[in-house]
């Protein structure tokens, strides 16, 4: 429960921090940290325009996308307090429930009958699906290390005994950071601030959304940032008590936002045709984690 609330809190300011960091590095003052959230609230109050081509799929998709992310959030623990749902293998449910939301997002884009949105949908579908193995192998390796298969028990037992596991945490953080960038269509994969539809992924998928639905999608993206941030937080917390986890959580989320801002400021977008290779490479990083775990456990000789 506590992690759920904290994630909602973090989602309020995280994209503000990203925007602010990007402004500062480019020498501008930048908007208030709460500005993106204010934009979303403004969208929630606005009326909508729907295309005549669209059907009920288009109207229901943002809702399902949003609720899929809420559902995924409810599985994440924080420190010693477990998520709302916690069972063995819950990370499989986590990944698949996010995929359900994505499925609807993609078909909603196809529902508009626009060539641009179809293009975005095609890219989003391929890129985020190629990223799936990396997440599974990462979580599986941590499961192998700890002997557990649910988020809560894995994270609690992760740093039991050895400090080397923090090194694993760092590789895992890198993988998760890159997954965040892929899932949210951010810089090395996609440039959200580009002005050419042909080079967009996520932004071009939601061209036809407006009003409340657009607000929902934006807020879902913020929540997704907080979601992956929380995964990273958990890589380092272990089973600390609440009074220590809450400040650490907020600190790491802020740091997470700043690092995304920095990545976005100093990295160029990859060529669209090279993205797929890059994403599959992430799986090899996960395999690196796996081999480190095998080495730690001394399984090579067994």
């Amino acid at each position, binding site marked *: 429960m506590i992690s759920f609330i904290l994630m909602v809190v973090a989602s309020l300011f995280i994209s503000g921090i990203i925007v602010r960091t990007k402004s500062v590095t480019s020498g501008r003052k930048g908007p208030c940290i709460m500005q993106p959230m204010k934009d979303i609230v403004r969208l929630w109050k606005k*009326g*909508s325009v*729907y*295309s*005549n*081509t669209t*059907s009920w*799929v288009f109207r*229901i998709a943002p*809702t*399902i996308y949003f*609720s*899929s992310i*809420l*559902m995924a959030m*409810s599985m994440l623990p924080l420190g010693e307090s477990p998520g709302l*749902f916690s*069972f*063995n*293998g819950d990370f*499989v*449910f986590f990944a*698949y*429930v996010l*995929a*359900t939301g994505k*499925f609807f997002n*993609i078909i909603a884009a*196809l*529902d*508009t*009958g*626009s*060539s641009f949105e*179809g*293009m975005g949908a*095609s890219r989003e*579908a*391929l890129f985020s*699906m*190629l990223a*799936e*193995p990396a997440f*599974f*192998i990462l979580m*599986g390796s941590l*499961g192998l290390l700890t*002997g557990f*298969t649910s988020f809560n028990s894995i994270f609690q037992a992760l740093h039991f005994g050895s400090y080397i596991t923090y090194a694993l945490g760092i590789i895992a953080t890198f993988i998760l950071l890159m997954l965040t960038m892929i899932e949210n269509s951010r810089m090395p994969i996609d440039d959200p601030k580009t002005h050419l539809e042909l080079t967009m992924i996520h932004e071009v998928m939601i061209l*036809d959304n407006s*009003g*409340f639905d657009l607000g*929902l999608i934006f807020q879902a993206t913020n929540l997704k940032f907080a979601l992956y941030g929380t995964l990273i937080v958990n890589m380092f917390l272990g089973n600390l008590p609440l009074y220590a986890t809450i400040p650490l959580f907020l600190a790491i989320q802020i740091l997470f936002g700043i690092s995304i801002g920095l990545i976005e400021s100093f990295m160029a977008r990859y060529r669209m*045709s090279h993205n*797929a290779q890059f994403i599959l490479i992430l*799986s090899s990083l996960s395999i690196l984690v*796996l081999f480190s775990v095998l080495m730690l456990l001394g*399984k*090579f000789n*067994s």
Partner: protein
Amino acid sequence: MNPITLFLFVVLIALVTIPFLGEKQKRALLLFSELFIVVFSSTYAIEALIGTTTSYLLLGSIITGTVPIVIDPLAAWFILIINFTFLTGAVYGANYMKAYREKKSQLSLHWVSFLLTHIGLLAVCMVQNMLVFLLVWEIMAISSFVMVIFESEKPKTIKAGINYLIQSHIGILVLTIAFAWVYVQTNSFSFNAIGTFAHTMPAPESFGLMLLFFIGFAFKAGFVPFHTWLPYAHPAAPAHVSGIMSGVLIKIGIYGILRMLFLMPTNYVAIGVVILVISVITGVYGVMLAIVQHNLKTLLAYHSIENIGIIGIGIGVGSLGMGLGNFPMAVIGFAGALLHTLNHSLFKSLLFYGAGNVYQATHSVNIESFGGLIKRMPQTAFLFLIASLAISGLPPFNGFISEFLIYSGLINGWIHGTFIYVLLFVFAVFGLSLIGGLAILCFTKAFGTIFLGSPRHTFDHEPHESHRMALIPMYAIVALIIVIGIFPVYFVQALWLPIQQFTGNMPSGDMLAVSASLSVVQQIGFASLVFIALTGVVWLVRKQLTKKQVITCGETWGCGYVAPNPKIQYTASSFVRTYRKLSESVLQFHKHKKEISGIFPDEAYHAIHPLDRVETYLIGAPLKRMRYWLNRFSFLQNGSLQFYILYGLVFIMILVAIPFFGYLYHFMVHLLNTL
């Protein structure tokens, strides 16, 4: 009279009467006899799943010996799956076939073979005598062949049918060799002899036997590289037949593998590794080829191959668990495989029925020619969407439950395994997650281009929603899909006895671990329910908040372009173009194109056809070589009658001469001896 004779007698009467009835009575009799078969066999099956195994001993003949008919829990599970799909298939098919009502004789043949296939499938599950097993297997194979070639006036259909017939007979040949081997060693046709064989023969030989069985059944199930008949046969058959073939006919191969695994519990580890590796390859290869198909039914056929791969991964996990003595892993693996068998039969038949509705409305199966059908066929679109979500393994539907079980089996093995098994399971998890991701790509493509957007093609008749009777069986399937997704625990409990056939009585410590790992599905069901409820709540909140807002309708935003037309939409091929470019290193494509050139360009075109590399190399190339070699004997078949009479004469002379050769031989021997 024992129940089996009674049963066969009633069915025989139905089979004989069908050809003499009018079109309507025929349908009524078919539905009635289907209902009879279903109720009759399901009663025994449900009893078996609860705990009372039914068995009869038919006398048989001098050749076959006694024929044991056994309905044990494993058979019962498959019987129930078969019955449900055949019931929906009969109701759907009765309506589907109205379009062909002038082909009277063909319809009779079709329905007779429909019933025969059902009986054959049920018999395959029950019969435990090798010779009779081959007999009923053959009945099933041939009657399903007759169903496939319903539209026999199309050359493509006949070609697909013959392909299926030949390949299923190669499978039967392999099975016959395997059974003959057992018979030679044990001198018995009973299935128990297979167990005796496994226990008395050295390990490599029983492994070889199991491998033979696996290959024989893999032809039916469609494991790569034995899958090549599937993508031809499914699109050629009428929709309900495709649904049944993909839903249950190929599953009988899975049944065979499981049955043999149960009878030969000796080489669990080795065969588990083989099955696991082949299944991962099957799954990934199936979905990779599915994505690039343009023909809706071929696409679904390749997805059947993918799902057979997923089921196979479950079986591999299960048998590795048995071999390594890890009971929780074994139970989860077999449970995942058996549940996925049921799940796949549900959503795949639903998808084929949906494809049938689309075909009857538009007379096309080319994905590129559809678009915007959701406005014209809203119910079919909804049903197809649910099936797409379920087959992609997404919660809150049934596909996720079985995939989850298989995942947890793999991860369980991964955590407890030694180095080499860790690598194996990582390979399988990588494959399974890739399959899941690519399935989503494939079904967003299929659903998106068929039902969404605006129409890409004007059809002669405006497409309209299918008949009520076509939709009712589909709704029944959807209901079951959702029930399994939300209350999976009841279905997993029903699987308990079939799984126990494999594991036997477990130590109580393992028992606890097993029930703990199976109880997870209850929590998943709950989480799925919460997910649905949460979506409902968000929807209500959205509705409440947007009540007073102004909603306007307009054209799709064209990024400043003001004259968009349907041709400008993203097509299915362009949707998967990036993927196709990536996959070109593995898959094979046949491209023809003529580029635009010159000042006054004439017509230009560009066509891409995906080919099956396995088929090209494994079947195409040897056939070509064989034809080349056999062509050298073509002088024998020169078309002149005199020569043919001569061949006959020579043949008869050789026949007559055979005893003479014997005499000659003896004479020579005698001569040599005297010398």
